[in-house]
Each structure stands twice: as C-alpha cells, then as structure tokens.
C-alpha cells in the first residue's frame, strides 16, 4: 500500500482509533521477526522489539509479545535506533531567503556569546520537522549559526513534541565556535592569530574566575576586553569537561591550532566540518576528538584544499568517532561515507550510539536497549541505500504519522482533473 492510499484511509476515519492511541505514545507495540541493529555493528537476527509507555521494554531474539500489543511484522525489514543528526538548525528556520522573521539560529548581540541558547526558539510546528523525521531522524542537535568568538550553546531535541520544553532531551550540551577562515573574519579580528589570542584569553578568564571563586569580589580586577559573566557561566562546563567545544574548522593548520587549545585547557572537543581532518586522524584519535563530517565535501577552498570524500573513512578507520549532519539527507550522507571507505558499523554508530555518547544523551537514546526511549525506525532495507524507505518511525513510542506539508501538497496535486474542470 502506498503512502498515498494509507493517508486516504486515515482521512476516511478508519484509522482514527489507532491514531488517537498512538498520539500519546502509550500504545504497546511489538515489532517481530525483524533484523535488529542494536547500534552500529551489533545485529540480532529475527528478533522482537517491544515498546510500552514510550520506552523499550524488550529487545532480543527471545522476547515474548505482550498480550494486547499492536504487532508489526518486521519480516525482511531492519530496525535501527532513531537516527541522531549531530548538527542542525532544526526548528530555527522556516524559510531561508527574504524571511528573516522566521530565522532564529543567530544573534546580532555580541555580548550574548556562548550564553546564546537558540534551542529555546525552536518552533515545534516548523514544517521541516515532519519531513525530516519521516526519514528516520528522531533527535537533532540544534546549534547556533555564526557569531563573533563563541557562536552560542547547543542542545539536543526530540523530533516530536508540542512544546519546546517537551522536545528538549538535553540543553546546554555543547558550546560552539568557529576557527580558520570563518572564525577569523572581520568579526574575529581579521587574522587567525587574533582569533587564537582571543580564544585563549577567554578560556583563561573562565579558568581564573573558577579558581578565584572564593576571592573577595571587590578585588576582582578584570582584564580589559574580558568576556562577561554570562559567557563565563556558559563556558564553565567546558573547562570542567562536562560538555564539548564544537569547533567549525577545516584547514590542517587550523585544526592544529584547535588541538593546541584543546590540550592547553583539557577540553572535550568536536570538530564540525574538518575538511582536512583526515590528515590529522591519529592526533584527533589520541586527543579523543570526534568529527562531524560532510561526506560530500571534496571541492577545494583555501580553508580546505585537501578536502576529500575519503575523509570520513580515513578518520573512522583510525578510530576517530565520526558523526553526521544532514536533516532529510542524513542517511544519504552516511551512505556516501560508506561508499568512500567507512565501515557500515562505524557509519551506523555515527548516526546512533557514538553520537549519543558525544552529546551526553546515551542513557536516553542512541541504541535499541531496554529502558531507553522508544525511538525506533523500521526500514524497508539497507538504511544507507537511496531506494530504502523508513516505513515506521517511532519517537518515544509514538508512531509518527505519514503527514507533512510535502504529503499534503502531493495529495492535492496527485490528480489534476479537478483543475481541468474549471477550465485551467
């Protein structure tokens, strides 16, 4: 049955009861006879997944089907954890061009810096969200875009929920900055060297503040140009190693500059982009730095002349955690990485558990294990392959309806005959 006919059935009211029960995520659901990908590289053949009250209550080969459960036959299908998009502005922008009133990912207020927290501006009714989640993305890291020195803070949202507060899985999960060409532009001081000084100074300010916390506040003589209290508070978790600094950086020498910062302050670090990261794979591995790759990036820029589609594979094969971003194209991005040398297991993990670990949400999501949120995707076949459909998407145990602005447009224009009757 095609999506079109399924939607027609739903509209006619036949599925009304099921939809009501599903809406709350309270339905007990069992997926049987399915190939379970617990995480990247860990597979259970012919298994059963049980979801109850929004949680995974059974995952394995010998799991009984609870009485009263809705049973979905997964014969010939694959089940994976709901996928995690590791960098997005999901929910922060409806229309890019000529509609700044719909855009909330960046701020013009430089004083906010690291404390700028755009996740609170996510619009749960943004029309892109249903299209993205119907491609298997159940969690998205929402990060800020642009900004001098520190871009702001990011967090992780669930791709389902009526209010932002319902959607947030983890707030303040990372702080963002840009180095290299992007970070050292006019706002960054016009030179990579200026940017380097400012980043070192800022982190030193935080460190000083943390060490002097017991000192008399009246004696506090702040360095001229020091970052403000808001920034210091937002940056403290970085220096405590609680959250990573996400650095947009591409050129090898800039990656080395970032690693210098990482080592000096003992930071957890994630590289975003990293066009030439493959050339520093062993160093990144040793420093425990993960990389959010763009598997299509192979065109030279002066910020990354050595860009190559083999980046993801070289990094992953050296032991670096490689993560992905891409919204509706997330599985395509991972598939391209596999097509260019990354193992399927590593790519699968980069969409699930490895990402959850980097973002500090692995207790909640990222693998198909009992007790975790019931974020599950049932695929018609190999999830990396372009012909594969996400047939069922569950978020917190709720089956996501096959409905989006896309689907509504398609339905309206599936048949043009009604337009012909009004004389075109």
């Amino acid at each position: 049955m095609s999506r079109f006919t399924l939607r027609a059935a739903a509209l006619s009211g036949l599925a009304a009861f099921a939809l009501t029960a599903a809406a709350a995520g309270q339905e007990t659901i069992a997926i049987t006879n399915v190939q379970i990908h617990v995480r990247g590289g860990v597979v259970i053949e012919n298994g059963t997944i049980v979801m109850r009250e929004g949680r995974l209550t059974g995952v394995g080969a010998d799991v009984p089907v609870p009485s009263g459960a809705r049973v979905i036959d997964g014969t010939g299908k694959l089940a994976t954890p709901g996928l995690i998009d590791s960098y997005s502005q999901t929910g922060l922008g409806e229309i890019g061009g000529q509609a700044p009133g719909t855009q909330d990912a960046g701020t013009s207020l430089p004083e906010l810096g690291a404390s700028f927290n755009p996740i609170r501006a996510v619009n749960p009714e943004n029309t892109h969200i249903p299209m993205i989640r119907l491609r298997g993305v159940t969690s998205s890291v929402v990060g800020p875009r642009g900004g001098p020195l520190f871009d702001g803070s990011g967090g992780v949202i669930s791709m389902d929920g009526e209010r932002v507060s319902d959607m947030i899985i983890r707030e303040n999960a990372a702080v963002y900055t840009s180095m290299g060409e992007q970070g050292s532009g006019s706002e960054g001081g016009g030179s990579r060297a200026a940017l380097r000084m400012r980043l070192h100074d800022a982190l030193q300010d935080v460190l000083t503040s943390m060490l002097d916390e017991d000192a008399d506040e009246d004696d506090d003589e702040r360095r001229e140009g020091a970052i403000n209290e808001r920034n210091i508070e937002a940056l403290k978790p970085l220096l405590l190693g609680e959250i990573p600094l996400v650095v947009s950086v591409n050129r090898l020498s800039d990656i080395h500059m970032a690693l210098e910062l990482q080592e000096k302050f003992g930071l957890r670090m994630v590289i975003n982009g990293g066009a030439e990261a493959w050339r520093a794979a062993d160093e990144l591995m040793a420093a425990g730095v993960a990389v959010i790759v763009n598997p299509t990036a192979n065109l030279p820029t002066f910020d990354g002349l050595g860009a190559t589609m083999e980046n993801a594979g070289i990094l992953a094969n050296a032991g670096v955690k490689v993560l992905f971003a891409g919204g509706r194209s997330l599985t395509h991005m991972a598939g391209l990485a596999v097509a260019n040398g990354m193992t399927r297991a590593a790519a699968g993990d980069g969409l699930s558990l490895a990402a959850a670990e980097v973002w500090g949400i692995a207790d909640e999501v990222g693998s198909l294990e009992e007790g975790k949120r019931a974020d599950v995707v049932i695929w018609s076949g190999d999830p990396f392959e372009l012909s594969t459909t996400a047939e069922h998407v569950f978020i917190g145990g709720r089956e996501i309806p096959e409905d989006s602005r896309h689907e509504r447009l398609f339905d309206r224009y599936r048949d043009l005959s009604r337009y012909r009757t009004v004389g075109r």
Partner: protein
Amino acid sequence: MMNRRVKKTVLLAAAAVWVGAPAVVEGQDRRFPDPFPSTYEPFPSETTLIRNATILTGDGQRIDGGSVLIRDGRIAAVGTAVQAPAGAVVVDGAGMWVTPGIIDSHSHLGNYASPGIGSQSDGNELTDPNTAEVWAEHGVWPHDPGFGHALAGGITSLQILPGSGNLFGGRGVSLKNVPSRTVQGMKFPGAPHALKMACGENPKRVYGQQDRSPASAMGNGAGYRSGWIAATEYLREWQAWWDAGSDAATTPERNLQLETLASVLVGETRIHNHCYRGDEMVNMINIANEFGYSIASFHHAVEAYKVRDYLAANAICSSMWGAGNYGFKLEAYDGIEENVALVHEAGACAIVHSDSPVEIQRLNQMSAVALRAAEEEGIEIPKEEAIAWITLNPARAMGVGDEVGSIEVGKAADLVVWTGDPFSVYSHAQHVYIDGALMYDRSAPDPIVFGDFMLGMDGEVGR
C-alpha cells in the same frame, strides 16, 4: 575523428524534432554568427568493446548482458550479440552497468569556480536587469577543479548558464567535459546557444533594492516584454537587410544585447528560464507565445508538478532538483520530492539538474532520491526510463539530443561504466568515455586530470 559536416546535419534534425525550433547550425553558418566557434577535438580513442554489462540506453531500453562497441569515437553497435573486432580493447562489464554520459542542463562550473572566493564570482552580471549581451563562456575558467570532480561523477556534457539575478542573464554555453586550456576547446561543437532568463524573487530583489525596475513581479513581466519588443524591431531591421541582399555598405548597427534576443526569435538560441512557481511558468509561456519564441526548459521548476499538463502540451522541459529542495525561500516553499516523477508521469520532459558543483558529482544519486519518493507514493518508474532525466532529456533541452544522450548506433560514444546500479549510493563511475576516449578510469593512480589550480597542493588526493 569526427566529421563535423555529418554532425551538423544530425543536429538539424534534433532541433526540429524536439521543440520545433528552426534549424540550428554552427559558427559562421548562423544568421547571427558565433564569432567564437568550438575548437574542440576528441581525444584519441581505441576501438573498445564493453561486454556483458547491464545497459540503460537512455532512450527507454534496458539490455541485460549487453555490449557496446566504440569505434572511431562513435557507438558502432549495441546489443546482446556484439562481437569484438580484431584488436579491440575488451572491457569485461560483469556486474557493471553502462549508461550514456551524464549531462547537466544547469551548471555554473567555471563561472563560480573553486576555490569560491570573491574573485571567482563570474556568473551574475548584476548591473542591469537586461544583460542579454554577456556570454557565460567569457567567464568560464577551464581550470576550475570542479570539472574534474564532475567527470568522476560521470558528467560528459554540461550547460553553463549565467545566474538568475537578471531578467535576461546572458548567453549560456554547452561544453564537453574535457581538460582544455581554453573554453573554446570545451565548447560542444554545433550546440545551440542558450539565453538565461529568470522569473520571480531574484531579479525583483536585486533591482528593487536599488530602487530600480523590476521591484515587483509586475516589473519583471514588463521587463521581459519590453526586451522582446526591442528585439522584434531589431530583427525586423536585420531581416530587411538580409532580404535586400546583405550589402556590406548598409549593414545595420550591431547591438549585442538585442542580437542575443533576436537570435532567440530566429531559433538559434534556446531559452532556459529559471522559474520556481507554476503560475509564473504559465505567465512565461504566455509571453513566449506573445512574441513567438519557445522555451526549451524551465529551471529549478519546483512547482512544475502543479502545471505539468501545460508543460507537456507545450513540450517544455523542466530541469529540477531530485530532492525537491523544499522551503529555502518562499517560491520554493511548495517543492516536493515527487516533482520529477509527476512531471515524468504526465509525459512531460523531466530533467534532474544540479545548479551546484557538489550535486553535479552525483546526479544519478539525486535521481535515485526522486525515484524513491515516487515509489513511496506508488508511482513506479523503471530505471531505464529514469536514466533519461540525466541523459537524453537534458541533451534534447540543450539541442544536442541527436548527438549525445543515448546509446544508439552513430551517436558520440559518451559513456559511463558504473561499478553497479547507478541509482545506488555505493556505485561509482569506473570508466567515463567522451567521444570514445577514456577520460576517467577510477583505477588509475591519479584518475582525475585537474586543471592547473590543484598543482602543488599538499592536500591533493584526487577524489
């Protein structure tokens, strides 16, 4: 070596079949001559038999266990019982798929070259809403590394169009994707010229911000029509001169802008019209009818599905993104992934284009995205039909459909041998042939022959 004279005849037929445009001829034979004709010569080729492969011919056929014979740069035979002539190179195609060379109807390679810094911005002459006088080929940098990457994605021909900031953006040029020191060395011999036009948000934004016309969609409409009125008058003057015997002493004064527009009116230049919304496409069809020209293809055409019956009835192609590209601006807000499939199903000419140095490297995969979306909605389109979106259909829109775009005896041997199903994310182009010459071999140590820019770059890896 190719015989130019033969090819010219072939092209005449192509143009007539597709949109009923008048004869298109090369260089000095045009009524408005091209002063910069192609100097392209095919690279050396060998008699080659690719055998035992799955062949998608581009014109709707699939041949399992098929063979293609390349001889003298042309396709000499195709089928299941083709024998290798003595001395032929034999390529075992077991497990491999063969398609025509991939063709992109909408690229800015060379005009917006890598590395993408300000001095490489040569695709939009944003100084007047009508810049029909500018030619994309004068801004094509043959050393753009993007050409090499596109070749690795199977691209054998591509049309470089000016950008969409102006109502009349300028002339586009069709290229063969070969290394060359000059753009003339890449120019597709005999290909019609293109004129880029643009609907919608871009022109009215660019000039509205300068308090100039067009500042609204109304201004856009008036701008096109004023341009065509002037062109009609210009053509009348030249027609009178031709009719009077073309006496050199009385040659009318040339005007580059009007010459481009007039060359459209006599069918020597094809309209490639950036247009997102269905209602605006119909406005453009109406304007074309008012002034007696035809539109070869709408570009981006995110709402082509809404007016696919008009597009079919008017034999206008739609060059679309495989993924629909929903919502990046309001005029793209109704973009759907099923756009390509719905246009195809309606019997209109569907094309998957790139408009991007990234997507041009995988038009096959972007077509697969469109195929998957269609299948999810119960629209079954066989791969042997879908491959036309990136082969024969763009070739026809560019006016080179009798020379390239399908695997037929007598056509140029522009071919891609894929490691597997070209609609799979895992498949790569293994061999790319242009006019029978092996231009890319994935197994070679340095498979991509880049232009000069990449020389001496430590990061160079060639993939």
